[in-house]
């Protein structure tokens, strides 16, 4: 788990730039879409399931296996639930033809 100084600094650069993108992108979302936004952002951090998969892939001890199983379950709930519930909300924002 030793990270080289170069890897560490690259990660830091990515972190700072991603934070600015997050700030900029969200500033442009109208209030009426803030609930889907919260839910959509919630789904995006469901990517933690990838982290859970990575520790599960190398788990050996029963404890590590048990904990990573729960981590995968939690992560999957986050990602599946997050995207599905956001889709349900956004589905309602479609416009009926002829309305104006």
């Amino acid at each position: 788990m030793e990270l080289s100084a170069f890897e560490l600094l690259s990660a830091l650069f990515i972190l700072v730039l991603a934070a600015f993108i997050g700030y900029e992108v969200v500033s442009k979302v109208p209030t009426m879409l803030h609930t889907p936004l919260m839910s959509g952002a919630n789904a995006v951090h469901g990517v933690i399931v990838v982290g859970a998969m990575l520790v599960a892939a190398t788990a050996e001890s029963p404890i590590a296996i048990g904990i990573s199983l729960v981590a995968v379950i939690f992560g999957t709930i986050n990602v599946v639930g997050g995207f599905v519930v956001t889709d349900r909300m956004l589905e309602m924002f479609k416009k009926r033809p002829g309305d104006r």
Partner: protein
Amino acid sequence: MDELNGLGVATFFVWLIAAVTFILALKFLASPRTARMGNLLGAAGMALVVAWTFFIRDGQLGIPDTWWIIVIGAIIGSIAGWLGAKRVPMTAMPQMVAIFNGAGGGAAALVAVVEFLRDTDLHPGEILPLAFIIATLLGAIIGSVSLTGSVVAWGKLQGVIAARPVKYPGSQIVTAALAVALLGIGVYLTVIEPTVPLFLLFVGLALILGVQLTMPIGGADMPVVVSLLNSYTGIAVAATGFVLNNYALLIAGTLVGASGAILTQLMCKAMNRSLFNVLFAGFGTGGESAAAGAEGEEDLKEINAEDAAVLMAYGKRVIIVPGYGMAVAQAQGPVRELMDLLVAKGVDVQFAIHPVAGRMPGHMNVLLAEANVPYDRLQEMDEINDDFADTDVALVIGANDVVNPVAREEGSPISGMPILNVDHAHNIIVLKRGRGAGFAGIPNPLFSNEKTKMLFGDAKPSVEELVQGVKQA
């Protein structure tokens, strides 16, 4: 830096593609037209990176020996997440988001625990690399706080836990002591010795801290808390990305951490309060509410549904102000019907949406969209506030604090919160379930305003009566 083989390079590109889809998922939310596609795009990027990680790790193709953990976990998690997301009624959306968020935070904390156990096992008695241990501790503490905090937020929104701010003598001292203990243990684990029992104590205290921080906050402020915890989980995921040297986690986590932070800020601004005030002021106590309910009953003028319907049907402009009461009563369908009938009679009908109406920003928009109210009839506060003076009837459906003129004066807990100028309308009709004060527990002089008529009862039957009335008018 390690040499990368072809699959290793490809992995970076998969992360890059996933990161771009996540950014687009948020960016496309700028318009209702593109929002849904953006969400699907984000889901596709997520599916790609998940599938890739299952088959390829560290530049090697192959399914892990422990594949069954991932498959079983994914099946259970998918069923639970899918059912939860499909079955939740639109009114309960905020608490559902809280639960999903808590699951993500819990996953981040658990990943940190497994990583810590593995590395102390591989290097017993050694001090772990500084960046690694700090990121692990951050993932563990923030993820844990997010997990238990989200559960409390869910409980308060769901009504399982008392919505009022729960405080006990010395609770702030306990919080401070927890923070100091966590800091002390964290420093010890970082520079002196990373021991497993102490690390588990660290996680345990962080879990308690999550409860401790959320309990003193009133139910009305829970949406802000959910948004903040959403941001926390993002940060925990980013920290995990650091630990695992995985850029997909790093970028996605940071993106959400930043977007959650600004969204939280926007919500506080809409209430004209600071985040500090939201988190520590213990706003909206149960006691006030009861007292206000007893006093506020004097001068209320009631109206029956037929008269109210006539008033609206023969007006030129009607502005409907929905609030949480409409959500609880599931009255959005009848409200749409009412709108259609009034529009057919030539009345100009608009909806005035306060930024914090309901339990979440945009909550009303989601509900009304569910009932097929075209979103160009939904006006934000700043757009419509000047129009009230020129409006025949303002119909308030289960909204209270966001139309309370007390906010314009000094000395009230909601002083300075921007409100809808409902009291400028020629006539005001308020649909209200009972005579008590609103969620924030503050009496509302709008209800005793001489232009105001009250229509008591559950919002759904009340609106249905209005619909009948308008049909006959």
